[in-house]
């Protein structure tokens, strides 16, 4: 669990370092070369894209008034989209925000450009190279430029009368319809759900993927999921669970922790967070392979700015995702509009992270197709 250690270490810094001086951006290595002035950035939409816009796209546009950015909210179909564009020989995306697992697939297929992180991202203010600042644990693929660590976790309604004052604090409570009756919301994909089911069934976190490789292990996971199957709404978009929770349609549901933060803190809904066995994942940029020279220069110039220490720390003011650089952690402060301290809402905060789980994206890259099919078949039963 190296990633956990890194995340814990960086958030411990957050708590001790206090306020630090905002860091000025440095000039990128491609400065002065010919650059395109229009770029299309692909991201996830919603609160996350908003945080990118505020933290580094708007400041970048302010420094480069000739440049215009077009957003495409297609990160969910990044792999399919880039395959189709490659097939049609018609590349329309210039910079794509993807999860670590998708970055690996795109890299393997040659659709994403292999990069040297030290040429793309600025060194930390204290001179540490980008590679050391991001650390090996974050740099999971040769094409991946990390931005944030986020987690899949659970939110529950705090006004359910049938729970008799009990509050869920253990992953097994998700599968316990006796103490916590009511509809659940789970993602309509096997990842995380299978792991959570096994952990609840008594499998130790470090053995989860060994067990999940076997037929019996998968049967075990499905058996646990069977307990709540007919009480579950299956979600596909990150916005579904907050909506279902706010509506009272479900009383318990998984989603990205930032979406729950937004529903709880910004929208003031009667929802609470359950951090137990939250599951970490990474998100970052890839550059599509085959960009022309001026566009590539512009993308590099933008990335140099957007992934530097201060900018990644700024992003955490708008959404409760942990910055991918170690040097950004001490600069994270309060929510930009609400003035709330962000540290207690970070998935990496020690109080929240004491029983966290790290998803194994490499394992999933190998087993995904097989388990996806089994999971869909199980759903249809």
């Amino acid at each position, binding site marked *: 669990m190296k990633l956990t250690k890194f995340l814990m270490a960086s958030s411990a810094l957050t708590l001790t370092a206090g306020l630090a001086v905002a860091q000025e951006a440095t000039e990128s290595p491609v400065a002065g070369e010919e650059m395109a002035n229009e770029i299309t950035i692909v991201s996830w939409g919603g609160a996350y894209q908003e945080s990118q816009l505020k933290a580094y796209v708007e400041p970048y546009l302010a420094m480069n008034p000739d440049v215009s950015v077009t957003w495409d909210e297609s990160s969910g179909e990044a792999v399919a989209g880039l395959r189709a564009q490659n097939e049609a020989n018609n590349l329309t995306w210039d910079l794509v925000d993807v999860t670590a697992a998708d970055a690996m697939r795109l890299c393997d297929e040659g659709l994403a450009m292999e990069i040297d992180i030290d040429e793309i991202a600025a060194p930390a203010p204290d001179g540490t190279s980008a590679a050391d600042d991001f650390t090996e644990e974050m740099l999971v693929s040769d094409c991946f430029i990390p931005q944030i660590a986020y987690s899949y976790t659970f939110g529950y309604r705090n006004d359910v009368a049938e729970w008799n004052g009990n509050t869920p604090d253990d992953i097994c409570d998700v599968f316990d319809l006796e103490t916590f009756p009511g509809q659940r919301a789970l993602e309509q994909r096997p990842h995380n759900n299978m792991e959570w089911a096994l952990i609840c069934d008594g499998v130790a976190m470090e053995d989860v993927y060994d067990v999940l490789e076997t037929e019996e292990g998968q049967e075990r996971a499905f058996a646990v999921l069977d307990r709540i199957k007919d009480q579950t709404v299956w979600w596909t978009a990150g916005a579904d669970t907050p909506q279902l929770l*706010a509506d009272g349609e479900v009383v318990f549901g998984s989603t990205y922790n930032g979406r729950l933060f937004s529903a709880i803190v910004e929208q003031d809904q009667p929802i609470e967070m359950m951090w137990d066995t939250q599951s970490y994942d990474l998100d970052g940029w890839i550059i599509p392979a085959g960009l022309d020279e001026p566009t590539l220069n512009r993308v590099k110039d933008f990335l140099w700015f957007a992934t530097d220490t201060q900018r990644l720390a700024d992003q955490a003011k708008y959404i409760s995702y942990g910055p991918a650089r170690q040097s950004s952690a001490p600069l994270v402060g309060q929510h930009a509009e609400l003035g709330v301290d962000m540290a207690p809402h970070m998935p990496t905060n020690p109080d929240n992270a004491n029983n966290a789980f790290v998803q194994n994206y490499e394992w999933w890259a190998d087993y995904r197709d097989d388990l996806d099919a089994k999971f869909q078949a199980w759903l249809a039963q």
Partner: protein
Amino acid sequence: MAVASTDTAPMKPLRGPGFPIALTALAGLVLGYIAGNALGNGWLGALVGAAIGAAFAWAAAGPLADNRTAGRWAAIALIGVFLLLLGGVGGLVAGLLIGAVLSWIAYWLASGAYRKGVPAYATPGQVLWHNTFLFICGFIFFFLIAPIVVVIPLSFNAEDFFTFTPEMLALDPEGYSLKHYRDFFTSSDWQQAMWNSLKIAPVATILSVALGTLAAIGLSQSHVPFRRAIMAILISPMIVPLIISAAGMYFFYSRVGLQGTYWGIVLAHAALGIPFVIITVTATLVGFDRSLTRASANLGADPVTTFFRVQMPLILPGVISGGLFAFITSFDEVVVVLFVGSAGQKTLPWQMFIGLREQISPTILAVATILVTISILLLATLEILRRRSERLRGMSPG
């Protein structure tokens, strides 16, 4: 009705008072169950509702039979006040509605008005079927309209979720806001999307109308070879699943450099709109008298003059309604534009699609309300034009 009208005596129900009482009580049971659930106890509500229904039916058949208006207002006021005491302002509104519905049912059954639509000699079975049929039609209508109607109050939600909040149900002004409309009119994303839609749809419509009208006129000439085959090909975009046309267009337009361009989307939407124009114009051409063009030619007009001065004014309603369909097709279309467009050409439906998937926000509902209003206006125009054309055709000598 002819039989009934010779008899001026008021219609009397054929059965005893038990029948309307039982049926009204049943309606009261259902309404009471719904209201009871909202207040916390469904079955108690059902019981009370059934009792009130039975009482109404008894009153409507007996003491208040000849005083319909007073009886109905009394019923509405009674249930309104009753639910106001139990459920506040929201209860009052629900109570007024329930009172109106229940008292209408009571009088409808007690006065025998349910036999109005059928001949006096109809058997009870025929009367039953007639009314069942009306109810089925009513339900179909309800299920078609309800999802659209429910969106409208939700778009005035003060919260950022698709939820009827307790404040909204209590009709508290605090629970309502115009912020989602403000969001639509101030957000650059939504404004950009609206402008893109407004730039694409009219041009696509003009292209569809011009090409579709010419095609329809050409295909209605009996001497054109392979008429049916050509017609089938032109109409195919309407029949082939959209996703297939869209994927095909994506790869073809990518090769010829049209993918992601403004003209690419306009052409794609024009192709989707042409079948509508062809069909409506072909339909109006059926009623068009060809001897008029020959007469016009005989009087010395060339074909172009004949077309604009004689033929066009007569088929205009078909052309306009085809154009409206083409416009709505382009304005509502999301699949093709996702493939053929690039992120710079997001149209309104595309922006709504993103909104639904990535960030469920009632702004979508505000936009939906605006679009529904526009669609209603367009369809009303269409209907007025259709009536005008029917009137004109009725007046024409041929």
